[in-house]
């Protein structure tokens, strides 16, 4: 008998069919993968199982019987537990209180605490139940999420992209815990778009593309290429790269110290980093290790650094305003597109004004016609799908908005281009285009700094890699001189200890 059977599940939203006749069967104790790109319908399907979204059509069977999970509570009663991608924890509460909120109200807080100690030991997910959530690292928070899922002895544990916030060592640990859990009869539904992980962990795999099932397989018998064919319908576009033609140092960070301004932030300690013209430097690391703070210091949003710490073409810009830096040729695309790189309620034409001076005359008066013309140019050149320059930024899809924002900055002919998570949430085709644009900039002699959590992306486009951990930046390495395993060690700050000469592991690269 199957633990969970889904038959012809369909869910429509106003403009999109998120799930189109999806069927899926999971055996007790099986680790089942749900593979698909961002936006393929994984999240919707998981939410349907978890009871927070109601399908328009289709049937769900649990241990053979037809059920309707109308709410998360009902699903929980069946034995479904879910670990969310964006961690759904409460900062001001303690670990135990966070878990308590998700379990049967009749259990006392003390009982919860005791059992947490027990569970944590059993699965190797150590975390102190009495600590407040805001004092925990991202990895610890995820452990709390999983512990919360395990608390009620679930029969099915759903994990949504659980490794996106973890360093490779923590991933290994997580897999050990998951295998142990499965061996005790709990089924696991593991959603991810990371092929290696799925091949390493899962026994069965259902592949989704644009809301439909495009394949079912045993991942151990598949290759990355065959899996990705099912996932995206074609081999991923290979980005052409020429060898770098390095110029002078364009952007240099020397011994930058910056005390955190946000209580939940990270302080920068002695950051050294340089990017030469014609070079792509990739910054790897689990987010929340100082990347945001470093980028703010480079962009000028945080200009508190000690003079001399950041220079652009030899000029000290540590204290310079963002506009001054842009005038010198530094362009920045932050991770947050809505609300930082663009004002959600403003039109694209007005959003041009955020970083572009065209359309403003000497007296500071605006020329709406020029503005709209400029916006239209960017929309056309970067094939942004939008109704026109008057479309509000918030009306664009994530990928299209990213094209517009990247386009706005690339169109300004940057000499130094800094970008965070360039392809986050963008579909594979568009991601390849954006990476191509980044490499085109580099080939034209622009210095590029890319911060990303996608290791594959970094290996693909970087000429030099550095790793950030706990507010520090590792020494630079050529991608071919830095194995994924070593990178993983560095992501938890291990470079200082392992200062031994780097071994060459060119054959262990992430797939491209």
């Amino acid at each position, binding site marked *: 008998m199957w633990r969970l059977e889904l038959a012809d599940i369909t869910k429509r*939203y*106003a*403009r*999109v069919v*998120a799930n189109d006749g999806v069927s899926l069967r999971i055996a007790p104790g099986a680790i089942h993968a749900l593979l698909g790109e*961002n*936006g393929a*319908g*994984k*999240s*919707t399907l998981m*939410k349907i199982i978890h009871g*927070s*979204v*109601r399908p328009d059509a289709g049937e769900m069977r649990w241990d053979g019987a037809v059920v309707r999970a*109308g*709410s*998360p509570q009902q699903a929980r009663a069946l034995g479904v537990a879910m670990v969310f991608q*964006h961690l759904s924890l409460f900062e001001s509460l303690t670990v135990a209180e966070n878990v308590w909120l998700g379990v049967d109200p009749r259990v006392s807080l003390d009982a919860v605490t005791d059992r947490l100690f027990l569970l944590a030991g059993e699965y190797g997910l150590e975390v102190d139940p009495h600590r407040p959530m805001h004092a925990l690292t991202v990895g610890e928070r995820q452990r709390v999420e999983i512990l919360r899922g395990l608390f009620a002895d679930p029969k099915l544990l759903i994990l949504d992209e659980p490794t996106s916030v973890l360093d490779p060592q923590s991933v290994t640990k997580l897999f050990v815990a998951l295998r142990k859990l499965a061996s005790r009869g709990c089924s696991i539904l593991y959603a991810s778009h990371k092929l290696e992980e799925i091949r390493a962990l899962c026994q069965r795999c259902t592949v989704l593309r644009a809301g439909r099932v495009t394949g079912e397989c045993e991942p151990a018998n598949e290759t990355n290429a065959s899996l990705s064919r099912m996932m995206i319908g074609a081999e991923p576009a290979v980005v052409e790269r020429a060898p770098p033609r390095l110029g002078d140092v364009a952007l240099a960070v020397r011994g930058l110290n910056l005390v955190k301004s946000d209580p939940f932030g990270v302080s920068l300690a002695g950051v050294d980093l340089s990017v030469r013209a014609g070079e792509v430097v990739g910054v790897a690391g689990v987010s929340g290790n100082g990347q945001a703070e470093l980028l703010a210091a480079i*962009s*000028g*949003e945080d200009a508190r650094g000690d003079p001399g710490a950041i220079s652009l073409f030899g000029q000290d810009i540590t204290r310079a*305003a*963002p*506009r001054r830096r*842009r005038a010198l040729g530094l362009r*920045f695309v*932050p*991770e*947050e*597109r*809505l*609300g*930082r*790189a*663009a*004002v*959600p*309620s*403003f039109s694209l034409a*007005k959003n041009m*004004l*955020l*970083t572009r001076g065209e359309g*403003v005359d000497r007296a*500071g*008066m*605006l020329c709406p016609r020029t503005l709209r013309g400029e916006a239209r140019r960017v929309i056309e050149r970067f094939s942004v799908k939008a109704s026109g320059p008057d479309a509000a930024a*918030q009306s664009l*899809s*994530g*990928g299209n908005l990213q094209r517009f924002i990247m386009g706005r900055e690339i169109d300004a002919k940057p000499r130094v281009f800094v970008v965070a998570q360039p392809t986050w*949430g*963008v579909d594979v085709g568009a991601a390849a285009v954006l990476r191509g644009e980044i490499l085109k900039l580099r080939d034209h002699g622009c210095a590029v700094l890319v911060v990303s959590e996608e290791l594959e992306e970094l290996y693909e486009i970087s000429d030099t890699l550095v790793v950030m951990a706990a507010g520090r930046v590792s020494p630079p390495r050529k991608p071919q001189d830095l194995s994924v395993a070593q990178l993983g060690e560095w992501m938890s700050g291990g470079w200082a200890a392992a200062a031994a000469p780097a071994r060459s592991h060119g054959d262990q690269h992430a797939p491209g």
Partner: protein
Amino acid sequence: MLRVELRPEISNLRSASAPVLALFATSIVGAILFVCLGKDPARGLELFFVEPVSSASALSELALKATPLLLIGVGLCIAFRANVWNIGAEGQFVLGAIGSGGLAMRMPAGAGHWVIVPILLAGALGGMLWAAIVAELRDRFHANEILVSLMLVYVAELLLDYLVYGPWRDPQGYNFPQTITFPPNAAVPRLFDGYRADAGAVLALVAAAAAGLFLFRTYGGFGLQVGGASAAAARFAGFSARASLWTALLASGAAAGLAGGLEACGPVGQLNPYVPAGYGFAAIIVAFVGRLHPVGVVLSSILMSMFYLGGELCQSRLGLPKALTGVFQGLLLLTLLVCDGLVRYRVRWLSPVAAGVPAPSPPVPAGDALPSTAASVASDPEH
């Protein structure tokens, strides 16, 4: 069970219809109120909506009352668009009256009519000064501007009381708490003989035009609104949050101060404890009903002025309390907020079974691709 859902798209027509709908709803509630008070609802509504525009003298009074509302409202447009919640315009208005009045009562009777210029400037300066306290405390100590500006209203009113009961009291005033009546050359010039409407109305219209130009046609105005819509975007673009804060407060303070000066040297002609008539608070309603747009504020200030006159007429003709005005004003804004909400959301009646689903469906599929902050930053209803 009721369920509220985000509308996939908001038509411009629907958006523009909200204030009209709100006015309509307010009239209906008003009519019911009249019936409850035992008065003819048609007559009551006539007093509010017809009488104030039915004669030249009525129109003159309408302009007179609309002037401070428009001036303050336009200033608040700038402040609110910058996301600076200056709620204490009433206090800045009082300081404006004190500034202008203090100068006006010292003007020699022989001086020419030009003295009104420095007198009104003193008013604007007074309002700016009062608002600058708010700006400084927010800038330096991060003190919440809502609370500080509000507390300063009470302080300003007490200061005015102190002056008119104490050092500035008219020695020949039979101990009434009031200053001397200002000399004629210190009075705001009237527009037409025989009518009370004065040059303040023109000044207010000019201020509205200037504010519109600033907000929608200058880079500075753009930067101010970026800061209001999204602080992170303003930091990213390099617009100074401090500059927006100070601009917003000084502009709205100056406007309120000027309104106070015009009031003291116009219809009142002296300082007394009744100068603060609540225009500073009513102007908040004016600004919102006018959609934080100077043109809208012109219209809403006229509407609100009708409410004032209507309330007075109800008092004199129907023997109803003047407090009706406040009720009507509040009602209008409440219904406007409801209508606004209904423009953005639709309320649907769901059967209890279907209502078991905890979340309504947004137009986009599950938040896979959206940064988690998107929903919280795209919140300001004023855009």
